[in-house]
């Protein structure tokens, strides 16, 4: 099976808080802030909320509105770099021979955001936290699709924050924090198909931008081409074939 349905989605970035915001922005883009305005996360009790760094607030801010009527859902959390600002601050602390903050250490692991959300939602469903150097979106969707074999629906959450300046010369990332949450379903929502491609397709915009255009109905397909490994294409599909 390479087809699935997207039952609902939501995404956040600085100044963009819902699908309508994204659609308007993609049609008339302007430079986004590099920092997220504080998302209130009122659904999460204050003592737990203080543990969410910008990365976690971003991810939770995108996912929580989709999960209001869902008690339990297995999920895939995908981030290329994880909480690099936090990790760097811990490394700087080690270099300065300062004792490490236990809270900081516990939040620096790749599955920290998923752990916080599962505690906040009291949801003990299975969680997979992945990273991919390229084609993060394609790999996250693939992981979520395989979980659809076992479950009726799966949350797929893709998120990153800009790298600290120290790391920026080494890799190009989105210059703003973002999170994209999608509920993949076997039976409800618009149909998509993910297929392997023989050759790379030159992309004019980033994977995230291409994906958002497709979700907003501005494009029919997205190509995920890497500099190495395989190439993938996501396209809208006929419900009969999914």
């Amino acid at each position, binding site marked *: 099976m390479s087809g699935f349905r997207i039952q609902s989605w939501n995404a956040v970035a600085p100044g963009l808080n819902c699908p309508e915001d994204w659609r308007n922005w993609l049609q008339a883009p302007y430079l986004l802030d590099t920092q997220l305005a504080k998302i209130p996360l009122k659904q999460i009790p*204050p*003592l737990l909320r*203080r543990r969410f760094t910008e990365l976690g607030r971003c991810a939770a801010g995108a996912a929580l509105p989709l999960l209001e009527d869902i008690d339990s859902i297995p999920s895939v959390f995908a981030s290329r770099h994880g909480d690099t600002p936090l990790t760097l601050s811990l490394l700087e602390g080690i270099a300065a021979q300062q*004792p490490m*903050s*236990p*809270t900081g250490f*516990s939040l620096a692991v790749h599955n920290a955001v998923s752990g916080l959300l599962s505690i906040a939602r009291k949801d003990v469903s299975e969680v997979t936290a992945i990273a991919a150097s390229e084609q993060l979106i394609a790999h996250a969707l693939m992981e979520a699709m395989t979980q659809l074999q076992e479950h009726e629906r799966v949350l797929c959450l893709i998120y990153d924050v800009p790298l600290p300046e120290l790391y920026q010369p080494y890799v190009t990332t989105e210059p703003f924090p973002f999170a994209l949450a999608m509920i993949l379903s076997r039976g409800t929502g618009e149909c998509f198909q993910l297929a392997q491609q023989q050759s790379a397709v030159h992309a004019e915009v980033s994977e995230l931008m291409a994906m958002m255009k497709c979700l907003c109905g501005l494009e029919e397909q997205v190509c995920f081409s890497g500099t190495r490994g395989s190439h993938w294409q996501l396209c809208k599909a006929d419900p009969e074939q999914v």
Partner: protein
Amino acid sequence: MSNLHLDVKQMIIEALDLEDIEADDISDSDPLFVDGLGLDSIDALEIGLALQKRYGIKLKADSDETRQHFASVNALVALIQSQAEK
């Protein structure tokens, strides 16, 4: 509230990022963990680190004695005072 009580409460607020809580909101005698303020095990480790940084107090991670020291602000104040007398 003595100066040391206030100091300990401010240490807790800063070390644990308790943004919405002020020193006056923390009781001297109520439990800090689970009931009362509602802190958790990671907070306990964080307070242990803050005690070490601020007052030079080192505690064993998992002894009954440590549990008693962490029971309330009053207990932490008593610990700091007893260490200062040594």
